């Protein structure tokens, strides 16, 4: 029977126990080492993310400066050509073909939470340079990275939170009960009035809290010192990331509590927790990825090389066919411009060339889609099953918040293709009518606006709810099954 004042006694005892737990953590060399590693790893992974973001930022600054310089130079040339009345041949910047060949720079700046995860942004393009001639060549220009490093993957915050952090939690909590049992202290703890279940649950949460606080210190100090990325746009991303990482840690603490409740030896606890970790970090994601690739295979890239070459080998016939098709499709383009000027240039060749580029580009886009769609299907499939592995769920959520998921990069490439098609279309009329391109026309050309990666709050909250639910369930199971 519960006596008056029992609750106060239990609470005071629990508070004393937790105060003592702090001292116990610092007294153990092994646990001190684990906490130090947590601090160092968290700081290092934050540094790696900010380092990549800085690299991206530097590359984009160079890129933007070069784009602005070339654009200014072009406008100056165009103004000169107008003032000096240059003939409208290929050497004139006012000729539609010369203007069309001008290099166009397109970039997608990193998302506000980019430091959270490098994701696919070191593998897929986040900026591109293209022109009418190098239509195919520059389409997929990606960042130059050491392939050995790409294969290893980055030690960024996503890797730290999804893979490393659970292992550190395991190291802190694998012998939660066994340690006390081996030392013969369990009977004494039983007399404390706290209740062993409550005591060990409080202990494991305390250790998870210590890990979380130290990690937060490591990450925040590096982020604020190097990145300053806690800007308004990034606050939502970082807050959601902190929630997810905290809940992931809670899940592993709850798992450790449940394993401890089974009453095995420290070796049993370590083995079981390590097994869960291997399954969550490697086995389940690996199997899901393999299953997704088998379910949605991508076509052969070697066939693509052959198709590309075949297409170019038959360029002349394709150009004529493409031009004929375009004339049917866009009859308004058949109205010629100034007859004298038309006679002065090979009117059929330039529109033919552009029609051919348009046709090649359409093929290229279809080909790119034939690769992109299966991969997006794979990603959707893995997304549906991501809850099978907490590590997978957290890493995908962080990549998504960082704007570094495959979908983000695929969206950029798709937007880029769309922009190029619109730009090409804008030149067609000028070419067919053999009109000059004025600086005003250049300014009025379609411009590229990157769609910023918006943090998917609903998705992150679904992940958070799942992590919280599983944590609660494990704690409940541990609470009911607790055997000291």
């Amino acid at each position, binding site marked *: 029977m519960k006596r008056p004042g029992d609750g106060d006694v239990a609470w005071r005892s629990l508070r004393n126990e937790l105060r003592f737990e702090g001292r116990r953590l610092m007294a153990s060399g092994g646990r001190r080492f684990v906490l130090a590693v947590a601090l160092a790893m968290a700081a290092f992974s934050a540094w790696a993310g900010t380092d990549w973001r800085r690299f991206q930022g530097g590359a984009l600054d160079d890129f933007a400066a070069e784009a602005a310089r070339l654009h200014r130079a072009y406008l100056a040339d165009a103004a000169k050509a107008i003032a000096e009345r240059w003939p409208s041949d290929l050497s004139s910047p006012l000729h539609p073909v010369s203007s069309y060949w001008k290099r166009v720079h397109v970039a997608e700046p990193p998302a506000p939470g980019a430091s959270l995860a490098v994701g696919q942004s070191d593998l897929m393009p986040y900026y591109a340079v293209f022109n009418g001639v190098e239509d195919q060549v520059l389409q997929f220009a990606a960042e130059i990275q*050491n392939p050995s490093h*790409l294969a290893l993957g980055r030690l960024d915050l996503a890797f730290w939170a999804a893979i490393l952090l659970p292992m550190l939690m395991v190291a802190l909590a694998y*012998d939660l009960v066994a340690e006390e049992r081996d030392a013969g202290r369990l009977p004494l703890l039983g007399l404390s009035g706290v209740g062993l279940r409550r005591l060990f649950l409080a202990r494991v949460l305390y250790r998870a809290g210590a890990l979380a606080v130290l990690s937060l210190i490591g990450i925040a100090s590096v982020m604020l010192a190097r990145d300053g990325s806690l800007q308004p746009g990034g606050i939502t991303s970082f807050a959601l990331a902190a929630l997810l990482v905290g809940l992931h840690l809670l899940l592993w603490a709850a798992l450790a509590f449940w394993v401890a409740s089974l009453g095995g030896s420290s*070796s049993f606890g370590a083995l079981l927790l390590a097994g869960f970790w291997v399954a969550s970090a490697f086995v389940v994601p690996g199997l899901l990825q393999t299953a997704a690739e088998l379910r949605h295979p991508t076509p052969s890239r070697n066939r693509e*090389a*052959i198709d590309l070459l075949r297409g170019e*080998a038959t360029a002349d016939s394709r150009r004529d066919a493409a031009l004929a098709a375009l004339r049917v499709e866009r009859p308004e383009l058949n109205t010629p411009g100034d007859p004298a000027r038309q006679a002065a240039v090979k009117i059929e060749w330039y529109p033919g060339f552009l029609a051919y580029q348009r046709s090649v580009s359409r093929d290229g886009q279809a080909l790119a889609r034939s690769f992109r769609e299966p991969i997006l299907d*794979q990603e959707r499939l893995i997304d549906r099953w991501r809850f099978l592995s907490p590590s997978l769920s957290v890493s995908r959520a962080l990549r998504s918040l960082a704007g570094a998921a495959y979908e983000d990069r695929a969206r950029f490439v798709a937007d880029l293709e769309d922009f190029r098609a619109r730009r090409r279309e804008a030149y067609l009329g000028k070419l067919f009518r053999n009109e000059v391109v004025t600086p005003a026309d250049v300014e009025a050309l379609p411009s590229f606006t990157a769609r910023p990666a918006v943090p998917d709050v609903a998705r992150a909250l679904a992940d958070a709810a799942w992590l919280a639910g599983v944590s609660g369930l494990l704690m409940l199971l541990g609470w009911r099954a607790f055997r000291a």
Partner: protein
Amino acid sequence: MRGGGAVLLLLGQVALLAAAVAVRWPGYVEAREDKRAAADTLRSLWLNQGEKGPHSAGHLGTVAVRPQPPLSLLVPGIEAYTGQWVRLVTHTQNEPARRPAEDRGPGRRFGEMSAFFVLAYLTPLVVFAFGSDVVARESSGGTLALLLAQGVTPARLLAGKILGVTALFLPQGLFPFALAALLPAWAPEFSGAGQQRLVLIGLAFAAYLATLVLLAIGVSGFARSAGAALVALLALWFAGALVAPRVAASVAEAVDRAPSSFAFRRAYDQGLGDAYVMGYGGANSFTRVFEKVQAELMREHGVSRPQDLPVNAFGYALEETEEMGQRSYDASFGSLADAFERQARWQRLAAWLSPAAALRNLSEALAETDHAAHLRFVRDAEGYRRGMMKTLNMELAARPDPSFDIRARRGAPLVSGRELWEKVPAFAATRPSTRRLLAGHVQEACALGLWLAASLVFAGLGLRSACARVQ
């Protein structure tokens, strides 16, 4: 861990190894056949391109496809992160395109399921799970004291432990050798050098496995409990397999940063532009190059009019621009390759910190799935491109064209056919000898040897410490 659980775990490991090979086999065969078929089709396209100007043929060019390394079946290395074919055209050197990783989701970066991944990264976990209690349990359970009282020496005890634990892992240890014996019957590319390299990978893995067993015995000897030993061993694995290589990569990038793709291309373009400026009076124009080459040829042949030249200056001018491009490319790609080489030194250093890193570097080198193999393909393809363009340009150079006018972009239609296309041989990638492959990785072999020796000493010390505690 004892009894049925142990047998189940070991059988599971062997099944996982077999599954890792079986799962990759269809993909390997498909890639191999696909690349062979692509190479044949590309060759056929080149030979049957019909009659056209040699320079037009140079603009169309061809594609060099990287042959699938046989041992990529077992050791995928960095294959997925390197371009698998290069477009070879006149005037410019392209980078290898189409990295298979671009056509995959990010999940692959957790670790490619392969025999190497199971052997190098999952086997240690099983070894540590078995080995962590091999001394600690006997020490805490009192069996160790009993053995010592019966006169068993620590050295005999160590030998017994090594034999006992190693015997458990014989199936994994023998797996590469079994593959070396069996695979040639299924696919001939695994015989000869392939078989020899597989045996060498097997030997490196045997040394790695022995190191793991000895480390487990040593840690188990020093630890107060089996659980503590297991956690210490997991921490070692964690640091060696997961953290050290990534930290080394990040530090390498911070110290020796390679240029961004954009900066690299700009430097290349600038280098090429500078070559035109320095050599041809500031005009970035083929016309200037042509006129200079033509004037030199006229001097050389002692003629006063271009029409009297016994050779075609256009072919020589094209070759001159090729060489200018090559110099610029060699400079920019050379500096990039140097930056990557400096970064690779950090990975080689990681081999001294982690036997997994040493095993990875050695295995990838032997399987030809490392960065050096990728660079060899890049060099082979570029060497082939240069030879191809020289053949085409010299064909033009040997056919004088008195009507050629560079300013009017006019000349006689000089076309060639299959006879010329056949002068360009089919692309063939070089296959270095095993000795050459190993020559660049003496450091890793030494590191693996040192790890083995040091862990033997460590195991002895651990066992002595456990004996001292119970005596």
